[in-house]
């Protein structure tokens, strides 16, 4: 749907030249939600501004439905901008206009007016759950409500892609939830492809199908969130999965110790007890926990296994679809 191809962008100042984007490539499937994460200074904002067509990259391409948008000018650039709905970073609403008036702005630009425009604004207010705030001015709305109006405005002209730049950075965790719900609804009900640039892993946890990790102007990791969590070396996994730093003292008392990542209802619910039954081993959870990525329950446990068939049990768990990584046990002698 949207393809970012080898984007390079440098800024020069008196202090010298800084390469904010150093060959960023990214692909987001139609109708999916992709999160772009990374530490401050990684180039997230620059990437967002390039995709919003506010900044022109030095080289590279941004394609929506196969058409490259970076080299366009004039009225074709304006038309291209309507394909990408942008929720900018920070407060971006017209403060002298009502919520409805703000949402109507892109429609005015597109020449949509009269009853058609009113109907569309009504639909969008409904989508973001602010029908009763249509006549309110931004200063009468809460931060989360303002952000939802910004999302509705970004969606007004029926864009193929919705780009949200740090949509939750100024919000508390509860309000963040309401904004993320709206982004998720936009994808579900309008089929729009969503790209969220954020430093907040909670965003990835809640709504992202895919994630791209940006560092020093490069994508260092890119893939489906549920695939990445199964990858032991993935940074995404390291931040999204429950921590393991409990139960260190218990490791020595077990024949085998392993870290197990379980994805999905069936795996999380039944795999470990079944392994225990099937192989007659004693299986204890030493650390880790359960979390949820979108709708999918995901668990990472550090398990200790006692019993003759401990190895077979681990093998079976692995074959059943879980990711098993054996942890080197403490010194054997001490355990005995």
């Amino acid at each position, binding site marked *: 749907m949207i393809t970012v191809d080898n984007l390079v962008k440098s800024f020069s100042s008196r202090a010298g030249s800084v390469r904010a984007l150093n060959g960023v490539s990214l692909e987001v499937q139609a109708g999916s939600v992709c999160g772009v994460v990374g530490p401050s200074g990684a180039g997230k904002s620059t990437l967002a501004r390039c995709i919003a067509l506010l900044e022109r990259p030095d080289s590279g391409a941004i394609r929506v439905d196969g058409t490259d948008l970076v080299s366009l000018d004039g009225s074709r650039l304006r038309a291209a901008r309507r394909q*990408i709905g942008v929720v*900018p970073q920070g407060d*971006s609403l017209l403060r*002298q206009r009502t919520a409805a008036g703000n949402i109507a702005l892109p429609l005015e630009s597109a020449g949509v007016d009269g009853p058609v425009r009113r109907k569309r604004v009504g639909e969008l207010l409904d989508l973001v759950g602010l029908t009763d705030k249509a006549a309110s001015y931004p200063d*009468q709305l809460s931060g989360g409500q303002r952000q939802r109006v910004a999302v509705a405005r970004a969606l007004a002209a029926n864009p193929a892609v919705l780009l949200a730049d740090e949509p939750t950075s100024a919000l508390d965790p509860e309000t963040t939830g309401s904004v993320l719900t709206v982004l998720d609804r936009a994808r579900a009900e309008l089929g729009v492809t969503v790209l969220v640039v954020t430093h907040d892993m909670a965003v990835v946890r809640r709504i992202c199908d895919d994630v791209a990790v940006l560092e020093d102007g490069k994508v260092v990791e890119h893939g489906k969130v549920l695939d990445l969590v199964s990858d032991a070396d993935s940074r995404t996994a390291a931040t999204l999965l429950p921590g393991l730093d409990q139960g260190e003292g218990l490791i020595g008392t077990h024949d085998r110790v392993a870290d197990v990542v379980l994805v999905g209802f069936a795996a999380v619910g039944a795999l470990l007890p079944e392994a225990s039954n099937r192989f007659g081993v004693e299986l204890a959870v030493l650390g880790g926990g359960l979390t949820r990525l979108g709708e999918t329950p995901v668990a990472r446990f550090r398990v200790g296994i006692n019993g003759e068939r401990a190895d077979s049990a681990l093998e079976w768990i692995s074959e059943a679809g879980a990711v098993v990584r054996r942890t080197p046990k403490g010194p054997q002698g001490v355990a005995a």
Partner: protein
Amino acid sequence: MISVATVFATLFGIPLGVLLHVSAPNGLRPLPVLHRILGVVADFGRSVPFIVLIVLLQQIVTRPLLSTSIGPTAAIVPLAIGAVPFLGRLVQSALREVDATVVEAAVTTGASRLRIVRSVLLGESAPALVSAVGVTAVTLVGFSAIAGVVGGGGLGDLAIRYGYQRYDDRIMWTTVIVIGLLAMLLQFLFDRVARLIDRRRHVTA
């Protein structure tokens, strides 16, 4: 005299301010040469003492336009022209107060520059623009006193002719107070309108 001059000043001052703003290096349509020229015009225009402006404009604008260079109607010409650069700068700084994020958000919707100027820049700064026109109108009250030299009439004229030249302190002080009250009234009205149309921080009880 003041009201007509204010209307004319607004008609030209706001477009001047908009052009100054959008042609700036980081504006919507950077045009360095135009920006420089307009800047010089605006600053030069404001620096000319009003009395000099009246005389200066008599031959080149006022007479060709109205076929007279004296009287209240003729005084409107220098008043309006003198106020344009003043208001232009005020408008420019009002537009500068519009948040860049808001403007960029409008850019990303694919809005044309004209629409951004109208809906975003002018729309968002409307209260500030009303205030700017108010300040201009009050300034014109002061300027109009000088217009007496070309028979512009008005209160300032009265103060000079009767108060100063005939040593009539009563008329002098009365006119000064009336001028003061007029300025205050104008300021009050414009502030009131500015507040009425401002939608920021309106709390509904």
